[in-house]
């Protein structure tokens, strides 16, 4: 197995995420990605009218640097560190998605119908992406964290608000995946 080029199994991915948590804690920072959205609102001047965004955003510049690194890592992993192979997706899921018109599971990293460049010219897809983005931004700030801040950092610190948030992630996720998505996609 070539870890530089092939997709990683779960037992490599999990420890790699724990390594990111370790490095951030030992750098005197916390592992939380959604806070950057708040930082950017503050940078754009949202603090002038809304107290939630007031305060010194410069203290959170490190998070933006991490986000920039995350984008760079994404570029490297998908352009250089790859042999083009994709981990297999369960057959039932592939069939199920094909019926919904979402093809490419187990072949492409992302569905072209939603994330290909031509998706930008599909009004329906744009509305879905915009709605998804809005819910992500609103929900993570309301909950006080996302998958990194609550599911990884918070659960690692045995914080019960994080357990409540993660239960919420799955209630919302299952509702969308099983009940709503089949009708709107």
């Amino acid at each position, binding site marked *: 197995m070539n870890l530089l080029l092939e997709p990683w199994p*779960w*037992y490599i991915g*999990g420890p*790699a995420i*724990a390594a*990111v948590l370790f490095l951030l*804690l*030992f*750098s005197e920072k916390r592992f939380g990605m*959604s806070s950057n959205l708040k930082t950017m*609102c503050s940078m754009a001047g*949202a603090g002038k009218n809304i107290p939630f*965004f007031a305060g010194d955003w410069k203290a959170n510049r*490190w998070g933006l*640097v*991490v986000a920039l690194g*995350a984008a760079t890592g*994404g570029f490297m992993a*998908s*352009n250089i560190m790859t042999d083009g192979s994709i*981990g297999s*997706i*369960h057959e*039932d899921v592939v069939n199920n998605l094909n019926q919904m018109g979402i093809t*490419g599971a187990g072949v492409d*990293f*992302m569905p072209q119908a939603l994330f*290909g460049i031509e998706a930008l010219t599909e009004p329906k897809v*744009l509305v879905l992406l*915009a*709605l*998804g*983005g809005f*819910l*992500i*931004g*609103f*929900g*993570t*700030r*309301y*909950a006080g964290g*996302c*998958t990194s801040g*609550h*599911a990884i950092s918070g*659960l*690692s610190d045995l914080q*019960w608000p994080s357990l409540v*948030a*993660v239960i*919420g*992630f799955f209630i*919302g*996720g*299952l*509702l*969308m*995946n099983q009940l*709503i998505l089949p009708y709107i996609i």
Partner: protein
Amino acid sequence: MKRTALYFSIGILFGITMIKSEVASWFRIYEMFQFKSFHMYGIIGTAVALGIVLTQMIKRNKLRSFFGKEIQIAPKPKLVKASLYGGIIFGLGWALAGACPGPIYTLIGAGYLPLLVVFVFALLGTYCYGLLKPRLPH
């Protein structure tokens, strides 16, 4: 400057991990919510299990950071309603757009440009939360 390079490197490791482990894949997230694969649960489970050991070690032994200061881990605010309602709203978006806030940056870097739409509206969502915060149950 040194610290900036450190944060940037950690971000690169995170971005590579999001792509190589396929956590940032819409297909993987869909598969997870269909309970058809152990992959995502294996990743989150191992990360949390190792994270608990790491966090407990830091707290019990009062470990020091790379820069020599004792590591402080701030507790999460004890807001049950906000955690649950916000969590549900985020979960809806996660399963729809197939990205959490971290992978949004990673996927844009990877060249999936429609994620820019997700990103702009995530900013708008965060802004609207800030606007409505005083009226929402926490």
